């Protein structure tokens, strides 16, 4: 379901090469404002590379990136990037980790801390202000990471398999948490995952990528499931299973191809 709303991200024929290896080839993709798009593909297919391009962390070898109608220029500070690995500053407390982005952007520290307090509460970590990352569980660290990004009010969220390192229960919890926070102001989201279930449960639209090298989109599915959703329950519905079958049909060959390599 391509919405006719304003476009948040427009990728035009993006190609990324590392030396002799072509990671992405001719990838075109759009994300509308307020749209939640999930990208699924076999592991190592260059999904994260795609996200780095949108964030401006990596310059494409060819092609154009437009954000909110503007051509990309350096790092994209309107985007919030949630990394797969732990990205918190280990030497700062939970509170200071959440506040740091505002401080980087010129807000006085005391004011940034006040706002950070509110955000920690929003992600359910009231009382953990003075904890250092190593004292928090995996799920808690992800919550701090979310607050660290969301406090900056990014126009688009780029998420790189953010929950893949969590155990299943924590993962369901975090996915619901993400949906709840997203529902509040519906930012655009580009969510990369290798997990079809996660993609369907969260997104408005799922884009399937081919196995690498020279990854490109090979399928696209609108997810018409109603919101608000509960990720654990929605998995059991008939329409969910139907979508799962359709996507898996396309992805199966790619997963085989990526394992055969």
């Amino acid at each position, binding site marked *: 379901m391509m919405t006719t709303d304003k476009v948040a991200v427009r990728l035009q024929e993006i190609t990324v090469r590392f030396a002799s290896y072509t990671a992405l080839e001719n990838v075109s993709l759009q994300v509308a404002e307020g749209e939640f798009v999930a990208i699924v593909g076999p592991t190592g297919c260059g999904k994260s590379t795609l996200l780095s391009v949108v*964030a401006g*962390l990596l310059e494409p070898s060819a092609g154009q990136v437009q954000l909110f109608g503007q051509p990309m220029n350096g*790092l994209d*500070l309107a*985007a*919030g*990037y949630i*990394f797969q*690995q*732990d*990205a*918190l*500053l*280990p*030497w*700062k*407390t939970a509170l200071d980790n959440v506040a*740091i*982005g505002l*401080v*980087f*952007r010129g807000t006085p520290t005391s004011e940034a801390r006040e706002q950070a307090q509110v955000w920690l509460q929003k992600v359910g970590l009231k009382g953990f202000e003075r904890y*250092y*990352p*190593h*004292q928090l569980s995996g799920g808690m660290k992800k919550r701090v990471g979310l607050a*660290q*990004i969301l406090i*900056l009010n990014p126009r688009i969220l780029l998420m790189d398999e953010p929950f893949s390192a969590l155990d299943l229960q924590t993962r369901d919890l975090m996915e619901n948490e993400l949906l709840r926070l997203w529902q509040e102001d519906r930012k655009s989201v580009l969510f990369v995952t290798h997990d079809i279930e996660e993609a369907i449960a969260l997104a408005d639209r799922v884009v399937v990528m081919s196995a690498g090298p020279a990854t490109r989109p090979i399928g696209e599915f609108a997810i018409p499931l109603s919101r608000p959703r509960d990720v654990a329950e929605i998995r059991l519905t008939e329409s969910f299973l139907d979508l799962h079958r359709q996507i898996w049909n396309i992805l199966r060959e790619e997963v085989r191809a990526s394992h055969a390599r």
Partner: protein
Amino acid sequence: MPGNRSVRIYQIGIFIVAMLAWEGLVRARLLDVFFFSKPSSIGQRVMEWVLQGEIYWHLSITLTETLLAFVIGTLLGIGVGLWLALAPTALKVLEPYIKAFNAIPRVVLAPIFTLWFGLGMMSKVALGVTLVFFLAFFNTYQGVREVNPVVLANARMLGASRMNLLRHVYLPSTAGWIISSLRAAIGFAMIGAVVGEYIGAAAGLGYLIAQAEGVFDTTGVFAGMTILVFFVLILDSAVSLIERRVLVWRPQASA
């Protein structure tokens, strides 16, 4: 695993046994007192020095030299380490020079520094700095190289400027490396001071030890060494204190 208390008991036990053995061997004439002195005389000499008060003058000279060499060498090392780690071209240009200077045995510099800077404190501080600098430099450099790239990318995406990165990412990330270098640096600074005094000086513990050696006063030599060791241990625990304050964010190794 034994508790802290029994560790302490073992430590003291080893000391007492070693001292008794030394004293016993000398008294039994198995070791010549002229070459080896003996713990009781050494202790007595240390007490004399401490009570007479002459030692404090020498000690203050050596400690001042040590601290100056430590502070100057460390700051220079950290500064240059940060700079070269973040400026790859400058590093490539300077690399052979750094390696060459580091390869010079510092002891041979001592007489030259005495010629250049005279018999006073300056020559000892200079010697200490050449030792401490490379230690701080290599550790800082390594620390910056090992900054977690994900944390760095995250900070950049959060909007950090170059100064922000230096202050909030590079420096704290390097702090562990720098602090572990401080420990060794204190020892090196002391070596610089004492070796410098040993080669040519008018005061300081190294001078005192050299004087004692000149008249075959082994008791004086060992007494000087005892006082040196004592103060290195004090400085070392000062570094531990700093370490605990700066690295509060680190997971404690489970004891």
